[in-house]
């Protein structure tokens, strides 16, 4: 800049590019993560106005304390049976993930995504919602299906794209669609499900229904326009919907700073929209349950939407196609200050005298066997790449309700290619 320019005396501008605290090889110290004591956050009445508890977007609802007790106003006071059911479902998700991750590594399918460390987010939510409340999930909420009793074999059939897959091998593994469990078809495009959940909730409200909608996205994809469109629609029409932001700190290799976490919390996104915002310890199944129950009551009583940030940690790679050792410190998962969600709930039940290590080990063994049996059953229907599991002509089904001439012609072309090539795609 020329020296006679009126701003020549100013320091030049500089661009801030966020950088995570730790990279591969760094020693991890999460001391800067602010973790308020369990039980320290007040619980507003579900009829209170969002603006009266905006401060809750900057703290963290926690129920389980360091001595494994459930404390404070958010303690949902669940029965031991309900707690054991949640623990079992979380352990089952973990066992399922473990098995399917290995199946991908064995070449039995193309892709898998674990939810290690985030099991409480989906299990706590599913326990708090009614089974017919409609879920518009992202790709790491397999816990909802498991909690609602979806047969493991059906989930595996989808993962293997085999002849038991009711999606006819059309979708990437884990992109389930389960209408019978009120679970919307998962998209690979991020946060598109947010406005869709609002639309479903608006439809439910306009019909005088009593069902509500709930949706999930990661912290990274709160940057998508769909997120903001959805929040605007939801606040305008007071839609009975719960927005869940699963802040697991990482969007593939991009840390939460690239979605704005250096400046504020994700729960605080709610404030500008006049929506109720909560920030919860996502590794505390009781806190997740309590927040979801509270939000569900608000929605069901026409108090409108709630945004819940579930503060958690993605303990594994983004997917089987990802290698997190390339971009983050290997010390992060174990150093995470909020611990492991399964261990925390287990220890709580033990502290209550309602569980013990022996039963836990036995349950893990039982669940592993259950998953293995389901896997054997599913593999009878085939695994990806071993022959053609669906009739070839189904490739053209479902583009439209009725097949137009141009698709019929292309279908005929494909069938003649099949005949000409002599491919070993015999219908199984």
């Amino acid at each position: 800049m020329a020296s006679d320019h009126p701003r020549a005396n100013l320091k030049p501008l500089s661009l801030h590019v966020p950088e995570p605290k730790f990279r591969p090889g760094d020693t991890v110290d999460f001391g800067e993560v602010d973790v308020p004591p369990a039980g320290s956050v007040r619980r507003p009445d579900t009829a209170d106005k969002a603006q009266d508890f905006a401060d809750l977007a900057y703290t963290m609802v926690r129920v389980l304390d360091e001595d494994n007790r459930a404390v404070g106003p958010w303690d949902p006071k669940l029965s031991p049976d309900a707690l054991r059911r949640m623990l079992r479902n979380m352990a089952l998700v973990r066992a399922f993930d473990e098995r399917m991750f290995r199946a991908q590594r064995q070449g039995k399918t193309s892709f898998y995504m674990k939810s290690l460390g985030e099991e409480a987010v989906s299990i706590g939510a599913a326990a708090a919602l009614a089974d017919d409340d409609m879920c518009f999930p992202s790709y790491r909420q397999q816990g909802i299906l498991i909690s609602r009793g979806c047969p493991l074999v059906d989930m595996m059939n989808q993962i293997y794209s085999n002849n038991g897959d009711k999606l006819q091998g059309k979708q990437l593994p884990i992109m389930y669609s389960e209408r019978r469990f009120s679970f919307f078809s998962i998209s690979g495009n991020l946060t598109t499900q947010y406005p869709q959940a609002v639309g479903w909730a608006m439809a439910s409200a306009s019909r005088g229904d009593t069902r509500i909608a709930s949706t999930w996205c990661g912290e990274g994809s709160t940057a998508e326009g769909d997120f903001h469109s959805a929040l605007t629609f939801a606040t305008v029409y007071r839609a009975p919907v719960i927005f869940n932001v699963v802040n697991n700190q990482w969007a593939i290799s991009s840390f939460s700073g690239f979605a704005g976490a250096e400046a504020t919390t994700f729960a605080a996104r709610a404030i500008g929209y006049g929506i109720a915002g909560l920030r919860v310890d996502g590794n505390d199944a009781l806190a997740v349950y309590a927040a979801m129950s509270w939000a569900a009551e608000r929605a069901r009583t026409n108090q409108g939407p709630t945004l819940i940030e579930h503060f958690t940690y993605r303990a594994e790679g983004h997917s089987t196609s990802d290698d997190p050792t390339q971009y983050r410190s290997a010390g992060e998962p174990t150093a995470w200050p909020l611990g492991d969600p399964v261990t925390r709930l287990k220890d709580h039940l033990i502290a209550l005298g309602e569980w013990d290590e022996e039963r836990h080990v036995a349950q893990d063994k039982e669940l592993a066997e259950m998953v293995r049996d389901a896997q054997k059953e599913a593999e009878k229907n085939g695994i990806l790449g071993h022959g053609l599991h669906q009739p070839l002509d189904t490739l053209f089904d479902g583009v439209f309700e009725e097949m137009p001439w141009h698709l019929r012609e292309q279908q005929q072309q494909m069938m003649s290619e099949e005949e000409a090539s002599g491919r070993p795609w015999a219908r199984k």
Partner: protein
Amino acid sequence: MSDVIETEAGAADTGTTRMNMIQAINSALDVMMARDPNVIVMGEDVGYFGGVFRATAGLQKKHGKTRVFDTPITECGIIGVAVGMGAYGLRPVPEIQFADYIYPALDQLVSEAARLRYRSAGEFIAPMTIRSPYGGGIFGGQTHSQSPEGIFTHVSGVKTVIPATPYDAKGLLIAAIEDNDPTIFFEPKRIYNGPFNGHWDRPAENWSKHPGGEVPEGYYKVPLGKANVVRAGEALTILCYGTMVHVCLKVVEEAGVDAEILDLRTLVPLDIEAIEESVKKTGRCMIVHEATRTSGFGAELSALVQERCFYHLEAPIERVTGFDTPYPHSLEWAYFPGPVRIGQALKKIMKD
């Protein structure tokens, strides 16, 4: 009109009345809202006010504001919400105020609405009809004049419908609303009020004397996927839709050429049989659209005609289109494929 009117018992004896295209669209929405409680109408300014072009006038008062309502200004949100409403079981008819504003909704349209039936193997569908005024000739400048139909015909899972008369507008819109697949319904806004013949410097006509302005008051459908032969002829085939149907009719009349003019009405699914039959008869094919040229729908039509009718062709296929520029404001009549451009192409194809 040449179409068989599909009527239901009790609806057949309703009379006809003169309507412009806006009134015909309004009537289609009104009829469908009365017939099906799942039909809802939403969009920017469509509620109390009745839409910037008045297409939804009176509907909120008649059907209530939980079925006809204004939305926030987010096209992505409008279409995303419509996907969710469809999943619940409603049959939304969202309006995008101008086709030029549809781009923020593309992901929800292309990756969600268009793919939902396929990716869920039919568990969830998106039975929505997206209405949107499109096309130029109204001094709308580059953000109120575009013809983006080619973007949608390229997407699997979406139907694209464009009417050219009030009669077709109502019948096609009712058919689109009843259809269980997502449908883009582009309304040629230059002919909302009358059948514009391309002569922008002459007095405007209205629909009062045009046979397509005679519209049944009740329920009827014009089937999707069926072209309309608006002028029978032997010398050449002209494939067109929307505003260009009327411009082509005028050019042919002035040139004294015995052209057969097909109003395609639906681009996907396309009435290939009608196209083949006509081109094989005439041996010449001209394609006219207002949209930009490169990768426009005319390119697809040209390829199809070449593939299917090559040995019947006596001259190269002619494409008459808008230019590959943004739609200019003050120079819009230089951009518009009007009588001069079409007339020159007509001379060329008849000389070859």
